[in-house]
């Protein structure tokens, strides 16, 4: 069964460093997303991406964050100058299209720990 793949599963970084989280969405999907979940809190939307550009972003997704689709299969989230409060699980998701009822399929997540 097709699945969304994320690497690494766990990343530890020093405060102020840059990290890149990687995702391989499901191959025929066109819409890609990043969500995050701080420990014990709800899953929060960060950004959606379609046709090589950001289609929507939340207030969390400020200049510290950027996304890129560097090739035909990968989708990355870059976090510059990480802060302690960036520690969270980051989930990549993809959907086939933008129909209202199109379900998003999530990866297993990258646990980011900023120390």
């Amino acid at each position: 069964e097709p699945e969304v793949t994320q690497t690494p599963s766990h990343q530890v970084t020093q405060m102020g460093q840059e990290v890149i989280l990687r995702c391989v969405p499901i191959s025929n999907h066109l819409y890609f997303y990043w969500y995050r979940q701080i420990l014990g809190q709800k899953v929060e939307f960060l950004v959606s991406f379609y046709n090589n550009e950001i289609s929507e972003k939340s207030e969390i997704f400020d200049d510290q964050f950027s996304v890129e689709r560097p090739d035909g299969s990968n989708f990355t989230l870059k976090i510059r100058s990480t802060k302690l409060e960036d520690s969270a699980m980051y989930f990549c998701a993809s959907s086939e299209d933008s129909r209202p009822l199109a379900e998003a399929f999530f990866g297993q997540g990258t646990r980011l720990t900023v120390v």
Partner: protein
Amino acid sequence: EDQVTQSPEALRLQEGESSSLNCSYTVSGLRGLFWYRQDPGKGPEFLFTLYSAGEEKEKERLKATLTKKESFLHITAPKPEDSATYLCAVKPETSGSRLTFGEGTQLTVNP
């Protein structure tokens, strides 16, 4: 502001003891309501999509229903492997394709 509230926060059941989880929502207009299952340390796993009031979807021991204000996830004769956090999410009309999640209900089914 769009809001999703799930109750209860946690639920303990004995194997075979049926129950329901609630998701109430306040949105400007609903494009879709989604149920996901999340196991510890894992990503949300898609279960159901609902759109119209009165709609019902079933999968094994789970049945999801939708009204104009809330959705229920009914669990019939649960098994220990149904233990997980169940997440409700909405896609409001104003949101594009983003999902707004509730806090989830942590379900534990004891053998």
